[in-house]
């Protein structure tokens, strides 16, 4: 279920003037791979995800995706239903809004929130809410996970746990992941491909497929790959 973006254009009308955000973006999201998108604030990363999730129309270009492909969106903000507890928020995206309680429980454990199933969003921390939002997207059983800086509010250790979970989701469930992140180390640890978004295009794409997972972020090998990624990203600056 690869997804192909060809010559994608998108502009917004802001105070009477059209502001181009995507200007001829080309990108291939390969099946079952993790693609990390990096780029400066305001360069259009969220816009790209929203287009893929079907929440935003685009102006020109083409998106070639298999029919009926399911996109599980993890928004930049958690966007939980405040009147539902954690369990109900996760089951929210299940087919027909229903899910087996065991499955919900499994997802809760997976995002490290055991014991919080009955809590309401207002009773959770920002990072906990983000993880509920991830569990909700997983409950949708998507072919692709679209994640907009999902771990930005997490501490080092929880973040590391979540990254391992993502790798597991990729490995065991064969889901593709498109991950927006500001953290190059995160991209380095997770991604098969890192793309730099700039001026509305993919300015650089760095292929990391040759580096076997799980990766050791502090090995000699890691240093070499980081050098490669940085060189790659530097070229356009």
């Amino acid at each position, binding site marked *: 279920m690869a997804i192909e973006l060809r010559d994608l254009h998108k502009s917004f009308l802001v105070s009477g003037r059209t502001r181009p955000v995507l200007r001829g973006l080309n990108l291939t999201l390969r099946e079952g791979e993790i693609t990390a998108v990096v780029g400066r604030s305001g360069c259009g990363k969220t816009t790209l995800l929203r287009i893929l999730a079907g929440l935003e129309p685009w102006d020109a270009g083409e998106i070639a995706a298999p029919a009926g492909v399911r996109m599980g969106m993890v928004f930049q903000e958690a966007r939980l239903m*405040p009147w539902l507890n954690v369990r109900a928020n996760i089951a*929210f995206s299940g087919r027909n809004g229903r899910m087996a309680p065991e499955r919900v429980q499994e997802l809760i454990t997976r995002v490290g929130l055991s014991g919080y199933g009955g809590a309401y*969003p207002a009773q959770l921390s920002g990072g906990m809410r983000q993880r509920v939002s991830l569990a909700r997207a997983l409950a949708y059983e998507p072919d692709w996970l679209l994640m907009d800086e999902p771990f930005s509010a997490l501490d080092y250790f929880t973040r590391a746990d979540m990254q391992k979970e993502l790798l597991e989701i990729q490995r065991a469930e064969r889901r593709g992941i498109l991950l927006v992140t500001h953290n190059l180390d995160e991209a380095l640890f997770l991604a098969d491909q890192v793309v730099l978004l700039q001026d509305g295009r993919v300015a650089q794409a760095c292929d990391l497929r040759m580096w076997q997972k799980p990766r050791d972020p502090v090995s000699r090998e890691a240093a070499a790959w980081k050098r490669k990624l940085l060189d790659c990203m530097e070229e356009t600056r």
Partner: protein
Amino acid sequence: MSSRENRPGVRGLVVLAVLLLLWWRVCRLEIWSAYLLPSPGRVARALAQLWTSGELQDGVLTSLRRVGLGFLGACCAALILGVLNGLMPRLAAWTRPVVHFVRNIPPLSLAPLLILWCGIGERAKVLLIFLAAFFPLFLNVEKGISGCSPALLEVGRAFGLSPWRRFWKIILPSALPDILVGMQIALGYSWRAIVGAEMVAASSGLGHLILDAQYMARTDRVIACILVIGLLGYLCNRGFEGLVGRVLRRGTDDGD
């Protein structure tokens, strides 16, 4: 701390007791005649008399039935129209001037017309309550429905919910606190309207009982009925507050 906060009734009772004591004391001083201000004892006796004669129960039931019918009707109409208006801002632009024009007319001022059109039967009174309850509820429903967060609606779209399910699973629950508050206000308005209506045009009900007592110069009966009206209104409100509180406690804040 929390156990004290859960029982605000106790502190309220203290104030009530003090007021009662004050009332009793003032009566003992005999500043005003017993006709102008009957003592608590006389009012209690009047209340007992009203009870044994069955007039009180009759009046309460009659008034309650009218309030119930009018309020229920208003709820149905206000929910349907409020939801339609909330979902369709363009429709709301058409109806808004009319709504705000009519809602500023005190329902009781329509009594002469309603009596003319419907006679002094039950219909006029129920209609009056309907008018009193409809507008506060309608406006709250509209506010709640139209105020639904676009960010949450988008979550529904992202996960493929049909418009119908988006309404039931996102729009309606997010509007629920507003709707309940609207119902609470509407219920209060109904109470006020019914007593007024029964004083203008009725031969039964609590309002009529008061008017009747006035003709017979029975101030003690008047006060007894007023106390009953206050008590019933208070109980209705308490019940509703419990309901609203339980819904609101779940939180309306998603923290984003």
